[in-house]
């Protein structure tokens, strides 16, 4: 299995990356690549046929980590394994390593990046849902300069983002959580490490007054509830939430989602370790 022929460029800085993406033709045939853990399979299956790959994995801008009082700006090319191993600072009380640990498999985590996951915008991926729940902001750079936006505004739909032609994700800013913040995360996968069929992330940070709930794996943009205190206190509102979002159609999927959301909310009450995430099927057992 061979990808269709493509050209490869590894620019040294952001400006060169933008130029390399733009001059490959107006038809948008150039694609940025970082870890290549989603794009690679698509290339091999010839589902994606870019005329040029622009390697952004080593751009200094995308490898930096800037820690501030309000949070941490992670370069887009920080890998899942670096989050998992605690090789980068964590503005949350342990949420990031926990989520990273549950992404695909270690061999994938060693190469896959947080920015790549966002840019790919697979609805069933872990970072888009998690980062939306944490209230993270995406930093972009392109021909028109730099801009930033909340994750939920960045992801427009399944595999669709707000990225303009020639634009790349430079980083993700994750606000600092209070030490007592809680994070409930559940996903249901047919097989460990596979893409989820239902997922939910809930942040409850009472000290900051932030309560957010995000339903992922919706086959569209994630469903984000920014004022979720009421829902957390009374999960009976889940049915209504799903129906209003147009996710009430298929009864089986509806019940699966309801169970996963309920579990994620319930998980807020008990601290979870990475290993307790392991039997993801268990959380949706009837």
């Amino acid at each position, binding site marked *: *299995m*061979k*990808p*269709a*022929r*493509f*050209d*490869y460029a*590894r620019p040294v800085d952001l400006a060169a990356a933008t130029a390399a993406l733009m001059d490959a033709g107006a038809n948008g045939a150039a694609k940025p*690549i970082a870890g*290549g*853990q989603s794009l*690679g*399979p698509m*290339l*091999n*299956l010839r589902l994606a046929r870019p005329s040029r*790959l622009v*390697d952004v*994995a080593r751009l200094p801008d995308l490898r930096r980590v800037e820690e501030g009082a309000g949070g941490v700006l992670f370069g887009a090319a920080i890998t899942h*394994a*670096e989050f998992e*191993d605690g*090789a980068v600072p964590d503005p949350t009380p342990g949420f990031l390593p926990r989520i990273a640990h549950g992404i*695909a*498999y*270690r*061999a*994938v985590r*060693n*190469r896959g990046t947080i920015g790549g996951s966002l840019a790919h915008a697979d609805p069933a991926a872990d970072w888009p849902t998690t980062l939306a729940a944490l209230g993270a902001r995406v930093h972009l750079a392109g021909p028109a300069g730099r801009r930033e936006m909340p994750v939920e505004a960045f992801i427009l739909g399944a595999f669709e983002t707000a990225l303009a032609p020639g634009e790349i994700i430079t980083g993700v800013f994750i606000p600092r959580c209070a030490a007592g913040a809680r994070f409930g995360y559940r996903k249901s996968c047919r*097989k*460990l*490490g596979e893409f989820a069929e239902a997922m939910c992330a809930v942040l409850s940070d009472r000290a900051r007054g932030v309560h957010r709930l995000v339903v992922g794996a919706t086959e569209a943009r994630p469903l984000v509830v920014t004022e979720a205190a009421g829902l957390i206190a009374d999960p009976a509102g889940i049915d209504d939430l799903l129906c209003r979002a147009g996710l009430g159609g298929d009864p089986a999927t509806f019940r699966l989602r309801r169970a996963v959301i309920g579990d994620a909310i319930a998980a807020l009450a008990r601290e979870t370790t990475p*290993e307790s995430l*392991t*039997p993801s099927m268990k959380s949706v057992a009837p």
Partner: protein
Amino acid sequence: MKPVRLEINGRSIDTEVEPRQSLADFVREELLLTGTHLGCEHGVCGACTVLVDGAPARSCIAYPVALDGARITTIEGLAQDEVAGELRAAFTREHALQCGFCTPGMLIMARDIVLRRPGLDEAAIRHELAGNLCRCTGYTGIVRAIRAVALARAGEASVVTRGASLPMPADPSPLTLPVSPARRASGESPAPLVAPPPAGLEFEPAPLRNPVEITEAFEVDAPRGAVWALFQDPARVIACLPGARLTQPSDGRRLQAQMSVKLGPMQAAFSGVGLIAPEPASWSGILHGRGVDGRSASRIEARLAYRLEATGEKATRVHIEVAYVLQGPLAQMSRGAIARDLAARLTSAFAANLGAALKGQATPVAAMPLDAGSLFLAMVRGWLARLFGRG
């Protein structure tokens, strides 16, 4: 094609790659490191797992073009690794493989698991191993084997495998590209020998990429001046090379020659051009050569560097370094120990013929092509001698 430099199992490889070539195809097809297995070819089954900068990665969705400067370790590179050895023993003990297709990936992943998270229990091992598929064993034996090694290492500190460097294996797979002992020891490629090209050059000798290198030194009973004179005479130098002959009279700098090589069912007749670049100040020089075999479209580029050292009034020590790169179908068929041995024999024969020529004797081997018969026999004898520690 894009130039890349990779370190594969401790050896530095300079080459050019097609951007779309996967790392798995590169190690299997270019380096004949076929221990890396390809299953699904889209990052699902884990059979192709290798170490990139110490950490497991899927080689079917990694591209060498993007891995410039990376250190790659395939299953062959873990031959002497202590943990891999423990795992191999445990896999054998616990019947952790049947057909063996998933095993290289399983071992590489298992090694990472027991190093990174020593003492893991069965459930966690299954979690960590979820990205490697096995269709034979039902995983029970595999998990049991890994558990045994993890348990034995329970007290050990966790190792950060990400970014770790592995030592070069002492004995690389016989299927890897041949490499001279001198290079194996240091792991550094020697500075390329490039002579200043004289006028009227027909080709620009470029540094050879990952050549096979052979060094030889021998004593001849002749004054240094006489040996030097021989090296400046293309006709006499070529006559010392088994199977080679000049096809055109040489002007003393450039030469056109043909060389026949036979090895078992394979034979080739390389026609090409050569260039003699002497450096009288240091009693040394370089012969560059380049040829094509018309039949197989195989190409060869070679360099013979010589240095003459006066060891007495009528005695000279000749140091020879031969480096060559063979490309094309012939290289695919004859890569490995056989090609290397053949080249070593050629070098020895060249040295012997040179000594004979200086003594004024005939050079019988030079007249005939390098036929399989005696040469092949000599090679086999040489192998056997080495195998049993005799000779």
